[in-house]
């Protein structure tokens, strides 16, 4: 935009007073062309060293540790893990819920905030969606392989067979099968559809034949015609709506796994909400962990602004406060119900000597550390935010541990009570999934448009035909 300086003058006259202005999504009043170059440069440029430093260990975990732990477990038995009687579910399900949780913030950012027209989401939406897709992959893996006979997983799908047998739909696990698969499919579709116009950008910028071929193929012939945009926008709205439903549904269903069970500590109607909010909270933690370094290393400070970080932090705070309320309610209901089993379980979450460390970690992080986000100083300090993000992930992990293991290890009959300690194979598999997640994420960062180019352009002031920067003249209203 050659005449942007001119328009800028005009803009300043027309603009509302400073205190009423929204923070710009992209700082520095850059033009569309600059934006395109800036946003594509990472996918097209030379691979920086930090990428390799992160990628090699992640790839090692994903390709060596992960399959080793996986095959050893599948060929030997679930017994290689620490699961036992009565704690039949251990790290396998803890990590499953944790990964599902991580996924949720991504969908929330990209879908719910779209519906509520939060323009700032455009710059981080794609990164959040990628986080969703990859973490749902990791999450979906756990239920499939945690079973005793993974090769019979197909029993859980309504496949006609010569036994005349069908799955049993009263089981929340069946609902899980549907929910997790749906989540994976829908979030992948959403992720992919959002990238179609950006594939077109990369196609048009491609300089080598191979890139050209690949991106032509991926862009599927996208031209950016008004008719395409018309249908595309509609589909996008529909998908956003559905994804928003998923945010509330998938974790609810995971919560149903627990609240339909009899076990004290699980059997609570608050669980669906609890899991949704917990998931979102955990996901915002993960967002902070991912955004802060990427923003710095990829030089995206103008695009992912401090205002973005501030908003993510605020959302984390809000969801954290809801979580705190739920903790309070849980303990209150346990006391108020008068049910001795409930009281036992909740008393032992904090005071039972076996797992009280995790119980206090949960309180310390999810309740106390979260309160730091009230302070603007904290929210504007990236190091603090990064650490809080990491801590939130640990806190939510311990919450899942406390819920799953903490309710199982001391249930109704004291004779059954036991203890659970994960083995190296449990932990190895977790490290493997973390590795796989980060490996996929780094590949995404390297090869795909990690910021939704056309979406960001769409929320630039220049994109509004009625805005001076968009070419509108004074008093030019349609």
């Amino acid at each position, binding site marked *: 935009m050659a005449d942007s300086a001119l328009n800028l003058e005009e803009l300043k006259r027309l603009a509302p007073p400073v205190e009423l202005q929204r923070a710009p999504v992209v700082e520095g009043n850059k033009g569309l062309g600059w934006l395109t170059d800036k946003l594509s440069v990472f996918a097209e440029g030379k691979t920086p060293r930090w990428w390799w430093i992160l990628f090699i260990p992640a790839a090692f975990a994903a390709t060596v540790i992960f399959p080793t732990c996986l095959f050893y477990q599948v060929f030997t038995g679930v017994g290689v893990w620490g699961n036992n009687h009565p704690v039949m579910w251990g790290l396998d399900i803890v990590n499953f819920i944790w990964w599902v949780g991580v996924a949720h913030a991504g969908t929330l950012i990209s879908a719910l905030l779209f519906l509520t027209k939060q323009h700032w989401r455009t710059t981080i939406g794609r990164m959040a969606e990628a986080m969703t897709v990859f973490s749902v992959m990791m999450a979906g893996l756990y239920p499939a392989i945690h079973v005793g006979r993974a090769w019979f997983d197909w029993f859980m799908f309504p496949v006609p067979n010569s036994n005349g047998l069908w799955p049993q739909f009263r089981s929340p696990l069946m609902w899980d099968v549907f929910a997790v698969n749906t989540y994976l499919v829908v979030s992948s579709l959403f992720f992919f559809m959002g990238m179609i116009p950006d594939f*077109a950008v990369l196609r048009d910028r491609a300089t080598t034949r191979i890139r050209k071929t690949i991106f032509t193929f991926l862009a599927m012939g996208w*031209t950016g015609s008004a008719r395409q945009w018309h249908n595309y926008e509609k589909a996008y709205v529909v998908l956003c709506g559905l994804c928003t439903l998923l945010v509330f549904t998938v974790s609810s269903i995971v919560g149903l796994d627990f609240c339909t069970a009899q076990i004290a500590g699980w059997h609570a109607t608050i669980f669906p909400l609890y899991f949704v909010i917990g998931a979102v909270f955990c996901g915002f933690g993960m967002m902070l962990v991912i955004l802060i370094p990427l923003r710095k290393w990829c030089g995206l400070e103008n695009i992912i602004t401090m205002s973005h970080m501030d908003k993510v932090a605020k959302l984390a705070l809000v969801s954290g406060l809801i979580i705190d309320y739920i903790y309070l309610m849980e303990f209150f209901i346990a006391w108020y119900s008068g049910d001795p089993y409930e009281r036992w379980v909740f008393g032992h979450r904090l005071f039972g000597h076996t797992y009280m460390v995790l119980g206090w970690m949960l309180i310390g992080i999810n309740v106390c550390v979260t309160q730091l986000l009230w302070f603007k100083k904290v929210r504007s300090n990236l190091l603090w935010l990064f650490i809080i993000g990491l801590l939130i992930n640990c806190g939510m992990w311990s919450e899942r541990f406390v819920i799953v293991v903490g309710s199982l290890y001391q249930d109704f009959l004291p004779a059954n009570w036991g203890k659970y300690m994960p083995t190296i194979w449990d932990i190895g598999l977790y490290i493997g999934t973390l590795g796989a997640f980060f490996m996929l994420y780094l590949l995404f960062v390297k090869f795909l448009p990690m910021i939704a180019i056309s979406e960001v352009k769409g929320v630039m002031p220049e994109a509004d035909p009625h805005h001076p920067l968009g070419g509108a003249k004074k008093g030019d209203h349609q």
Partner: protein
Amino acid sequence: MSEKVYGLMAEFDSPAAILHAAEKVRDAGYRRWDAFTPFPIHGMDKVMKLGNSLVGWVALGGGVFMFLQIAGLIWFTNAFDYPIIVGGKPMFSVPMTFVPSYIMLIMGGAVGALIGMLGLNQLPRLHHPLLDQKRFALVSRDKFILLIGAQDEKFCATETKTFLESLGGTHVEIVEDKD
């Protein structure tokens, strides 16, 4: 040559410019024309009189279909084909049916939306005459292009070109449809 002409394209610099140009093209009575933009331009669908997109209906259809499909499947498998006493619970009931049916409604809707979008946009389409145009690549960057199709009744290579130039379009070019 005329058989091979796909249309005429003109380049504009700002959303407002192409929006105004589009209005004029529409007013001039052209019917087979389109605007190519890096992002959706607010008001363009009104200008083009596109009405409501059918994608929503396709998505709804997909969702409802999946919902009924799964509810029916659950009834068939658990209550009709092999009813087994499980946990003292009924063979078929709303609580056990709703959740999977509902989640599959979302799946159906999402798949419907994507398929609807692709179908209505006639994608994937790997070969397109515009993609051969050097300057068309700028659409995905920061240019706005308006194209009047050769098959339009009012299309005339020279007149239309002038018309487009009169609208402020630069780089008015003929798009050829090559194999």
